[in-house]
């Protein structure tokens, strides 16, 4: 680790010299290079584990008051659990409680066998979460935001990884743009891309289909399904029956009472609630 740190510092000095020579506009490109160069022998992603998430009699809510029924479920590697239900049923509250962003009213959640605590390194290394939070560094570009995530997680090929994800999400031409210059849908794509430029064994997505066009939804759903088949554990909230049918391997209908459903049943339930959904 010390050797690597020393290498990073010497490369930082190199960047400053290069910046001086090439001008400030080159700094982000050079930083990309540095972050890519400063590598040590690679560590492979952890192999798929069983029981990635286990929620036991979990009551989610605010100020000690539950917002929906008590939830119990387990999610293994290579499984995708979709939480469905009407607006305001408490789906997002459940997901935020599962990943420790909200305190549970009662019950418990284990992730990879450990109590949920986002202060631990293991949690942050394994769990990728995308909520609909539009908070960006106003002076940084799309590429630079993704570089923070990718390099922070120790990805070796930062530039290549980011380029691939920008292409997948249709943002290749916008990598040098600043987030607040993007459309709402493009910012949503950027947030989703941030979960894919880093390693993950559990991916948590809150209504990933929101603000995406139909083609992008379809591509994202297909990719998520492929990743689940390859061992990813996926927990998502969705209102889109097609998205759900493509991605999910099981579903929970969240309301005052909780129902376990097959993806087909859940997709039908959503479609009947929302006949105009595209």
């Amino acid at each position, binding site marked *: 680790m010390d050797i690597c740190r020393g290498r990073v510092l010497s490369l930082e000095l190199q960047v400053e010299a290069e910046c001086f020579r090439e001008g400030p506009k080159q700094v982000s490109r050079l930083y990309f290079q540095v972050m890519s160069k400063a590598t040590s022998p690679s560590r492979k992603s952890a192999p798929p584990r069983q029981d990635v998430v286990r929620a036991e009699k979990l009551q989610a809510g605010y100020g000690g008051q539950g917002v929906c029924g008590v939830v119990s479920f387990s999610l293994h590697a290579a499984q995708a659990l979709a939480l469905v239900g009407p607006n305001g049923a408490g789906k997002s509250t459940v997901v935020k409680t599962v990943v420790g962003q909200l305190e549970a009213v009662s019950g418990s959640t284990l992730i990879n066998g450990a109590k949920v605590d986002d*202060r631990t390194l293991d949690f*942050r290394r394994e769990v990728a979460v995308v909520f609909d939070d539009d908070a960006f560094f106003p002076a940084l*570009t799309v590429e630079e935001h993704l570089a923070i995530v990718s*390099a922070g*997680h120790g990805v*070796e090929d930062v530039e290549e*990884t980011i380029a691939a994800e920008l292409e997948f999400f249709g943002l290749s031409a916008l990598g040098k743009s600043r987030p607040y210059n993007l459309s709402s849908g493009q910012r949503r794509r950027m947030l989703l891309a*941030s979960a894919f430029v880093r390693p993950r064994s559990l991916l948590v997505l809150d209504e990933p289909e929101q603000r995406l066009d139909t083609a992008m939804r379809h591509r994202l759903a297909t990719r998520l399904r492929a990743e689940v088949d390859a*061992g990813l554990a996926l927990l998502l909230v969705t209102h889109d029956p097609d998205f759900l049918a493509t991605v999910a391997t099981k579903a929970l209908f969240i309301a005052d009472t909780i129902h376990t459903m097959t993806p087909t049943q859940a997709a039908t339930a959503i479609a009947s609630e929302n006949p105009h959904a595209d």
Partner: protein
Amino acid sequence: MSMKISERFSAKDIRQYTFRAGLSRTEGGLMELVSEVYTSILGALTLLTMAGALIVALRHSLGVGDESALLASAISPGFHSVTLLQASATVLLTLAAALLSVEMTMGPVAMTLPQTAWWLGLPVRRRGFIQPGFLKSLIWPSAAALAVVLPMALGMEVNPTPGRLALSVLCGLGLAWLLYGIASWCQITDSGAWLKKTMGAITLIAPLTLVATALFNNVAGGGAITAANTAWMEYLPTSWPLLVADGATWPLLLVALALGLLVLVFLNLERISTGQLKSSAAAGAYAASSLLSMDATELSRSLGGETSAGTSRIRLPLIFKRGTAFSRSVKTLISTHATMALRSPATLLRVLVLAAIPASLASVEFLGNAILIAVALYLCAHFAATTLGATARFSAGNPAVDMLMPLPAKTVRLVHYAVPAAVMTLWAPVCFGLLLALGVGSPSLLVLAVLAGPGLGAATLRAAFRPTPDWNMPAVASPTGPIPMGAIKAFLIGPDLTLIVLLPVLIALIAGGVPAIAFPIQLTLTFLAYKWGTHVRKPKSAKDGGLFGIPAAPVQK
């Protein structure tokens, strides 16, 4: 999903990358920011110089006294002021409560929203992200202690020695650090909600005790509150720096206590949850935006951690059946704005408290200086005016709301003007009436202030509809990172109109008399402010009227 992983970067590397990448595209330095407001600063200086010359000429022609306006007291002779000790103790108590309340809301360990969103999920040691915020945030209470305790210690001591002053300031620093430590510990342990509420109440009530005491003293005669009656206030922990200035050394125990607590906090920094850091960051962003808008309600709400607009169920009629479609729409909008104002009684209370602040200042022994009162008046008038601009600011941020009514943009803007103008016209007699009760000013000054009231309503609109800083323009480098062009300029839009509208009143207050010419001048300025504040800038592509370029819907009876 399978990607090659290598040694991760430290939090420091990531912080530096974020900072430098942001700066890499900046064009220009702080002088660029200063230069963009050069004409505004020059204009304000010219205005103040002219006002100064006018004050000197007026004082001479009115024959109000030979002393310089800088030293002139606005208090009538024989007025029973509040003692300096009571005032100092009250101010220290208020500031300490405000400091603790603010720190508990905004952190005190502070990060920005993007930092919490993009940094805290990284698998690196979190101390590297949290610790800089903790250490930087210590600067603010330290600076506040220095700025408050030093002049007070100088005022309390007859012959202050440098050593005694230094000890007094050290005690003040100890007090500020102790409060900071308490707030930090509450953040780490996610506790202390009751403490924050108590501090918020003290902040609101304590300043009013000064004006209440002064009013009481001037009618109580022999039963007036004397220095002996208020001596106990010196022993409040918040007044201990004053005791040190008086010669005591035992209050310096505060310093040791504070340092011990800070060490404990430092060792436990990594215990702060991500949720806590995110909520502090959200509160910080909210406070920063409300500071930019100079809205006392938003600022107070953001610093006090209020999350809702209250539970009031007041509902005025919103549907009108008589009149034309145009008049019905206007009535609905006015009724909506009035309902929003009435549903937040705390807002109206704050406006009222702001009306009493200049009188509180005037009531303190040695602080009845006309210029000091004029500065306080200006600030309070602007804060009160912007406090009433919540509805207008909401519409500025969400223009679609105003488009719901089939009214042209100009009419909608005039409707936004109604409530602030009416309330500020009522605010002026309350504020100047209290001053008059303390012997400051005259009935004619009060009338002049009432004439300025509608102009203050226009300043509310100018501040509410100010353009936002533009991140699309090249940013400017600063020690804290990039700053968008127009940031300082945007801050000055609103306060400038308040100053212009209030100028005749402030000049008359400092000069000590109101010449007859002041009334037509005030009326003219108020009218110009009204035209300025309610002016709607049309988009270049839509010069043909209508709301935001959309032609007004045909009016049907």
